[in-house]
């Protein structure tokens, strides 16, 4: 019934790193029998503070088992700081894809990782109920949890929240509350971006020039290239590539990933960069 990728099927049929590390440095358990999924993750560091061993035990469907197996593979060799940056999307990418109703299995992986790292750092057992109040009683999801998922993953509908953490997927009575949380998060994020000080056109051009000089030119020059700022018309910035950039096959990528990105971060989200 589910269209699983070959990688999901492989990690389900031949899961890696099954079991529990002896005397682990970090241990995290999330989920429950009642939920229909649960994951216990343990890891151990080597003398270079890198994860040498990571093991899992999972109660759950093929997606849950595959996500847990994939997670342990991705953890081995990483430092704690590197491991901490792993998201559930990384797990999904590693597996190729997951059906949207199974995204929560990868989220479970991320949560177990957080709990294990918390345990490593504090020696304590992570209790998510300490964070916020339960909004979804069918699946035990708290308001803080839903808010965090909505913010981190930029989710805008209750259905997306359900796919990510199951909240709202049972009796559905908490859906109005979930929608209220989503609207609050969207409002806060909007206010944040509007809170940037408004620039005059002159100030904007000066900031664009500064950003190009400080952030963009050094990158291009490293590879023998450069650019000239040609014009700024409202939010449209036109530039001319020179040197090695002229004949570079990926200059269009540089235009967006380096030039436009830097200007959007430093000056305004609305900036669009063109090459002439």
């Amino acid at each position, binding site marked *: 019934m589910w269209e699983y990728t070959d990688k999901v099927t492989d990690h389900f049929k031949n899961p890696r790193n099954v079991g529990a590390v002896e005397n682990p440095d970090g241990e995290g358990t999330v989920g429950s*029998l009642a939920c229909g999924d649960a994951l216990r993750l343990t890891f151990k560091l080597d003398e270079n503070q890198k994860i040498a061993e990571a093991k899992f035990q999972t109660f759950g469907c093929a997606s849950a088992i595959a996500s847990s197996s994939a997670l342990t593979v991705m953890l081995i060799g990483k430092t704690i700081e590197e491991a901490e940056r792993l998201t559930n999307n990384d797990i999904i990418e590693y597996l190729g894809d997951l059906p949207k109703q199974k995204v929560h299995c990868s989220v479970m992986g991320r949560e177990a990782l957080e709990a294990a790292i918390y345990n490593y750092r504090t020696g304590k057992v992570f209790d998510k109920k300490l964070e916020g109040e339960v909004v979804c009683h069918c699946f035990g999801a708290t308001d803080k949890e839903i808010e965090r998922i909505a913010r981190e993953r930029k989710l805008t509908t209750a259905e997306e929240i359900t796919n990510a953490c199951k909240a709202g997927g049972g009796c559905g009575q908490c859906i109005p509350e979930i929608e209220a949380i989503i609207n609050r998060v969207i409002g806060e994020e909007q206010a944040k971006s509007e809170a940037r000080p408004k620039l005059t056109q002159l100030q904007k051009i000066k900031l664009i020039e500064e950003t190009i000089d400080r952030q963009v030119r050094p990158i291009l020059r490293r590879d023998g290239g450069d650019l000239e700022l040609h014009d700024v018309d409202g939010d449209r910035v036109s530039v001319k590539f020179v040197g090695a950039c002229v004949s570079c096959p990926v200059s269009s990528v540089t235009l967006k990933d380096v030039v436009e990105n830097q200007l959007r971060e430093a000056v305004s989200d609305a900036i669009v960069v063109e090459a002439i």
Partner: protein
Amino acid sequence: MKTSVYVDNNATTAVAPEVVECMLPFFTEQWGNPSSMHTFGGGVKKHIDAAREQVAALIGAEHPNEIVFTSCGSESDNMAIRGAVDAMGGHPHVITTRVEHAAVLGPCHYLEDNGYRLSTLEVDGQGNLDLAQVREFSRTGKKTVASIMWANNETGVLFPVQEVGALIKEGGGIFHTDAVQIAGKLPVCVKGAPIDLLSISGHKLHAPKGIGALYIRRGTKVTPHIMGGHQERGRRAGTENVPYIVGLGKACELAMQRMQADSVHERRLRDRLEAGILATCKGARVNGEVSNRLPNTTNISFEYVEGEAILLMLDDVGICASTGSACASGSLEPSHVLRAMDVPRSMVHGSIRFSLSRYNTDADIDSILEQLPRIINRLRELSPFVQD
């Protein structure tokens, strides 16, 4: 070569070879419209009449015209419930149970959303109804339309339809029963019974998917679902699906001939399978009243492991079954039937349903008993809840 062991017959059954054979001429040679004036079309009508008699005979209906052909069990359920409520007028009270098939719960909830009062009967831990509750619900002084299934598709548990029907009729109501899972497996007889409406589904009794029937007792008023044409005496419009009607008739005839022997055969295999599983797998329990079930069904929960994972591993070795687990349902909630029976949450996600047919063999049971314990053990090794 991987042999297929098909033990998911409550989901659908193989079309009997005899059924396929009798359908073919109605695709290749006699494909006329039964309502046509010419003999090429009109001559087909007698085959529909013959099929109608075969279906009527299976359920003990006195008059073949009490059988209306539909496209499936879901259509029969919808037509029965919404049609009876609509024809009754005056906003009747609707009664059903928590463990009905979605094709019954769907129209019941629709009616509730549209202002009808809906009462839902509970079941106990073995899936049995409380007749006292039935009595209470049917004596509100209001007219009632009740829909209560005969056999449960997930657990096989049988409801005391005669007693339930009698209570509903005493209270002046109309009684419909979804007999989709029992027709063809165990004797069903509506003659003299307190049953006004009864649903049948072809693909559960070795006819193809896409054909069903609704028994409407003479004198019972039902507003048609599909209106317009005169077919089925104006009760269900649409050019008759001739080959499938003929196929359903044949399947019913076969069921009548074979029912006694088939049910003994299925019961023996089911009991052997169930005993074998309980003996070789620790932490396993049967869901549902074992002494009062369809002969072909067993629903078993395995502690600490999850249903979809079990099914996929069974599928890998060619064994086809189904589960009440949330993960395999497309929604996030596990089987509403198991939840209504208060199956502990620790076991509801690890439930597997095996449902047999006349075509299963001892070799099939041997295969399952060989593979399943290994699979359960393997998944328990993966589980965080099992400490060894």
